[in-house]
């Protein structure tokens, strides 16, 4: 049977591709190419990386509909978990490198700074989705699983808000991610969602 082996290779490939940025940033830090504040470098890059992972994860369903290629659906859970991993590393970078593991300070910052509160809520949300993405949970939750995991849309909104509050003077980068997010969410609108498979049929003719 060739097919399962191909799928396995595909999944391993996606795994390595998702891991690669982290390895790259780590190498930059190790070779002193990350600037005078390597902790901040990791914090910012991993944060943006996490947002990209979330957007990629949410792109898989419309891509599956559009292409009818099984490969996209196959890596959805993996990329979802990568999103959680990036978000967790982002938070850990903040606690470790910026706050120097000063838990009291983390506590007071969590109460005081809206953008940190929103980021934390998003992370907790991702953790809940991550914890319920195993087979057992899917079976246990049954019909409730899908509505629960639609909270990923809310999390995307929270992440963009978190990012928005950090921006200081130029919205360009944020606007780019917000536009991609809007596009990804637009594919969920029922009329668009219905058209996607037909669209492909039309294009292929």
């Amino acid at each position, binding site marked *: 049977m060739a097919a399962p082996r191909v799928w396995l290779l595909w999944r391993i490939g996606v795994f390595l591709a998702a891991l690669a940025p982290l390895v790259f940033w780590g190498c930059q830090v190790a070779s002193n190419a990350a600037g*005078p504040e390597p*902790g901040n470098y990791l914090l910012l890059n991993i944060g943006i990386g996490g947002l990209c992972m979330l957007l990629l994860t949410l792109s898989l369903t419309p891509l599956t509909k559009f292409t009818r290629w099984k490969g996209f659906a196959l890596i959805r859970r993996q990329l979802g978990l990568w999103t959680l991993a990036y978000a967790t590393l982002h938070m850990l970078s903040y606690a*470790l490198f910026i706050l120097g593991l000063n838990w009291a300070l983390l506590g007071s910052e969590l109460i005081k700074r809206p953008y940190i509160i929103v980021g934390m809520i998003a992370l907790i949300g991702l953790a809940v989705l991550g914890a319920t993405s195993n087979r057992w949970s899917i079976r246990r939750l049954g019909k409730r699983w899908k509505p629960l995991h639609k909270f990923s849309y809310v999390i995307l909104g929270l992440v963009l808000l978190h990012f928005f509050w950090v921006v*200081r003077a130029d919205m360009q980068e944020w606007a780019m991610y917000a536009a991609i997010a809007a596009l990804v969410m637009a594919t969920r609108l029922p009329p668009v969602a219905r058209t996607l498979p037909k669209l492909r049929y039309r294009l292929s003719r």
Partner: protein
Amino acid sequence: MLIKIAKPSDLHESDVTPESIYLSRRRFMGGMAGLGAGLALSGHVRANEDYSDVPEGDAPVWLREKISNTQWRAITPNDPDKDKIAPFDDASGYNNFFEFGTDKRDPARHAGSLETQPWSVVVDGEVNNGGRFALEDFAKPSQFEERIYRLRCVEAWSMVIPWLGIPLAEVIRRADPTSKAKYVRFETLVDPEQMRGQRSSFSIIDWPYVEGLRLDEAMNPLTLLAMGMYGRELPNQNGAPLRLVVPWKYGFKSIKSIVRISLVEEQPVNSWQQIAADEYGFYANVNPEVDHPRWSQATERRLPNSLFNSNTIDTQMFNGYADEVAELYAGMDLRKYY
């Protein structure tokens, strides 16, 4: 107190240097002089030997001359072990200069497009002696001083940087302000062709970047107009060819690439105040007791740091310059005038 302003009557380093050392230094300098007076101008030897690992810049001849006549170490930290000078690569590679992008590395990447020679500065407003000056003429009457200052960013990181420049007070005195002059307003160049950040249609800053000081703040002996750092001219990303350095205030007050200095009657609205007045005030004095809405200001990360040593230190009132500047704010509520 960490900074000492040398009075003319004070002992100089030369008064306490053993004779054998300064004689050997003279021999060294004599040998250098043997290579010709044009040597300092050719840029192969910097007047101060401490920056031998700093790359040569591209300073015009007049600026090299000014630099070679610098009064080195005019102001230094009291405890140089605690306030170690940041490596040049860090000071020139980690910058906020939104005219060239918002990432800390953008200015070093993109500021090469800025043409800094020739450069002129307009001095206008409530002055008897204003006009447009070629930078060379603007700098000529004053002697360069090297001042090693802490730079504290509102984002809660800090560095120690050796600047080269002239006291702003001298420039203002020469301009001869009228009795109406109460504030000084500064402007950065606007040129979207040279400054890619100004081309961004998503920018919140209404160019030009504007900053201001109260006249007595501007006249304080610590306030410097810098034209160099690390024994060479300013790199573009650090605000070439002319920038302000106000060491007791957050870094954003220290406006870069200045083209206009105006003495004015009304308090200017600085760019950051315009964007978010609740976050950035006019005064922007470093104050560990007044938080920025996004960052606690009680501590700062002294750069460079490393992954597992954030090098966090307590922030000092007025960035450690309270002895020199606290009286400027006597009786003011610094929570209100943040």
